[in-house]
């Protein structure tokens, strides 16, 4: 019989990073609620969002950590990276400064996650093309140089938002399939550097607590 979505096979942790006001929370909201949040308050600390998706017939639960973009939270934010399977790095195509800061965000992402973490570059606010401050080509070149996947999105219209989240999941899943992401290591009992950890659908895991 059709498995309910509660029977997901994996949980993937994502983090969303980038400067203040680039639209991180709005992207999350658009992805989980399919709605645009017009007056979004500043994120303090971390906000969570979850959604269950399907990749290659497997149900995967995304646990998305939406971080504060303000510089003063930067030190706190660093503690969120650990164990992320995917990182969405966001800038605002209408504000050049948010693009210029990408290298610093990328450094954090590289240093604080494991080598297999999939980093996805998102140029948000593609609906405001008239006010564009960063060309697509320029950002695409930056992404290629650094081995990132890149898309321009709009949290307002929803354009490409779904693709960014799903494409990231596909890449992570591919890494699991070809063995480059070692799940056993995650099960070693030490705080895992790598994610995801499998949660078998059947509940056959000895560690599964059904008490």
């Amino acid at each position, binding site marked *: 019989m059709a498995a309910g979505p509660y029977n997901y096979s994996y949980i993937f942790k994502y983090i969303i990073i980038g400067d203040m006001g680039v639209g991180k929370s709005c992207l999350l909201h658009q992805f989980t609620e399919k709605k645009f949040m017009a007056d979004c308050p500043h994120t303090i*600390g971390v906000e969570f969002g979850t959604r269950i998706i399907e990749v290659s017939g497997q149900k995967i639960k995304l646990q998305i950590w939406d971080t504060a973009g303000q510089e003063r939270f930067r030190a706190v934010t660093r503690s969120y990276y650990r*164990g992320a399977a995917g990182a969405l790095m966001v800038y605002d195509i209408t504000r050049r400064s948010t693009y210029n800061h990408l290298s610093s965000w990328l450094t954090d992402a590289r240093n604080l996650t494991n080598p297999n973490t999939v980093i996805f570059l998102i140029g948000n606010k593609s609906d405001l093309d008239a006010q564009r401050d960063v060309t697509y080509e320029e950002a695409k070149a930056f992404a290629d140089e650094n081995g990132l996947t890149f898309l321009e999105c709009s949290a307002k219209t929803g354009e490409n938002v779904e693709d960014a989240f799903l494409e990231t999941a596909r890449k992570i899943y591919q890494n699991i399939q070809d063995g480059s992401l070692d799940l056993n290591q995650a099960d070693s009992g030490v705080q895992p550097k790598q994610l995801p950890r499998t949660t078998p659908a059947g509940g056959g895991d000895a560690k*599964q607590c059904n008490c």
Partner: protein
Amino acid sequence: MSLQEQSDVSVAGVDADRLGRPVATGEVTPTGSATSTGSAASRIRQASDDAPSASSTTISTANQSYMDATLPWDKFSNWVHCICVVTFDLELGQALEVVYPGYCNLTATEKMNICYLAFPDSNSGCTGDTRFHFRMRRFSGKSLNTAQEAYDQRAPVYLQTDPVHYFGFVHFRQTKDKTIPRGYLQKSVVLVTLLPLVNLFTHVVETIAPRFFESGEPAIEAACHDIDQWPAPQPGVTFNLPLMGSIVQCRIPSHYDMPNYQKPLVVTAQESTHLAPTLLPTVHEPQLFENLAPIVPHLQLLWELVLIGEPLVAMSPSPTHCSGVVQSLVSLIWPLRYCYDYRPFFTIHDSEFKEYTSKTQAPPKLVLGVTNPFFTKTLQHWPHIVRIGDANSGQATTAAAAKVFKKSTDGRTLDTKPGLYSQYKPFLAKDKALLKRILKGAESQRPVEVQSMILRRHFLEVTQSFMIPLERYLASLMPLQKQISPFKAAPQARRFDLEEFLATVADSGPGLTSGLKGNWTGLYRRFVESANFDGWLRQRRKEVDHKLQLLHLEVLCATDFSECDLPARHEVELVDLVLKLLDKIEFAESNPDSVSSAQRTKLQAQMRTILATVDEDLKSVLMSNMTLKQTVVAVQ
């Protein structure tokens, strides 16, 4: 913002509206043309003479009335959207003369529809008073107020509101009046509401309209004032509603009633001493026999057509009759809700006329009631047509309408003989015993109420026999208790599978509870394709999901997390657990009816246990989430 500011800036304007000065809307005509300002102004009448003084006193007490008091019209709008008077003006055509409350929100299209639907469509023999009702599309949003939402939660599914359709209840009068050019008065009182309480509002309009024609607008104003005293429309409660010097006693059925339950209304001694209430035995049930007598032989077939959502039109010369027929037809499948649109009275001026009569597409799935002979041609391509003669012509019609005409495309449908025009082959055999019983009753002058009750009970039983196997199958889709784990989301019921269900019909199908013979399986196949099935399944899913959330919540409460070796689990999994608990706490708060406060406290205690078990790093990460922080702080 300070209250001072409020009273300085906006109170006067708001209050004038709130106190119900009706806005003269005479300038709105169905054709959309505007009258000159002069004539519009002359139509403005002051509904409440004390409005100016009242609004000035409100300014001084704005403080209180703005904070907590119920404002005028608040209670009114729980029951009624507005009450209008539509008149036939020689120069303008149908025109909206008055709307109560004045601030009432109606779009131009809504006003136009009210204007046209307020009058009989092919008005020739309608001298005197005519009452009927209609449904029209709502264009001004689809929100409900708090009382209406509460009503929907407790009302049976088939009586829940449809937020995108209004009901209109009409009392039309046409009399000779020498003082008017051309010598005729043609006017309607129309009550517009979202609540499908057909009998109640018919009664209300029947009470208000004669008084209005007697003494003019003050009658409407007084009625509005009375309705503004009514308590919220809560299903399951017996009401005594004041209305124009009398009391209407009635009860809206509740979702929790037994099927076919009717609480007897009793006059209490105290009330009977000075004012005997009018007892309204049912606020919603159309009189089946009164409306459907001429087509009783077809009812079994019509029940099928309504059940599977076939396009169906009822033609009758009288709007009273056609609205009664349509309302009765869609009620045949209760306790199922008829989920398509239906129009008890539909005219060629309706804003959906083109959409619904288009010949380039298949006829839409809905039930229409029409009076205008023009529809004979317009709806010629519809597969099922019920034609009923004038109800007043008596028994002769009964016999005539019993005929079934095979519909063909050769134009025979232009026939005007009463009867059913359709090529539909029913899945179930006719219940001859029922026919005999009704016929005998008619011969022996059995009261129409009793005849109606027999029909109502019969179709309730047929519908239930049809639904019980589906209900039983649905119950078998529930997950097992042992599948519920604190580390997983609440489980969901398995998906509905038609073939799997049909396999159960042979052994435990409707045959167990119904004597009707026929191809039940074929009927199920058609039914599951209909919106009626979708609506039923969606409702049941909602109930099942709610139940499963509760079971999951119980498991989360009962789990001893200190034995689950949380530190050995991965961060992602722990965060997932914490988010689930947060979700459940939120669920508990928004469902105080089904989650006890002890359970809520327990969930919060569980959250504390988990936070105490995880390492400091993770704890500080989690506590930087504002929602979680607030939840935990609230506990401490």
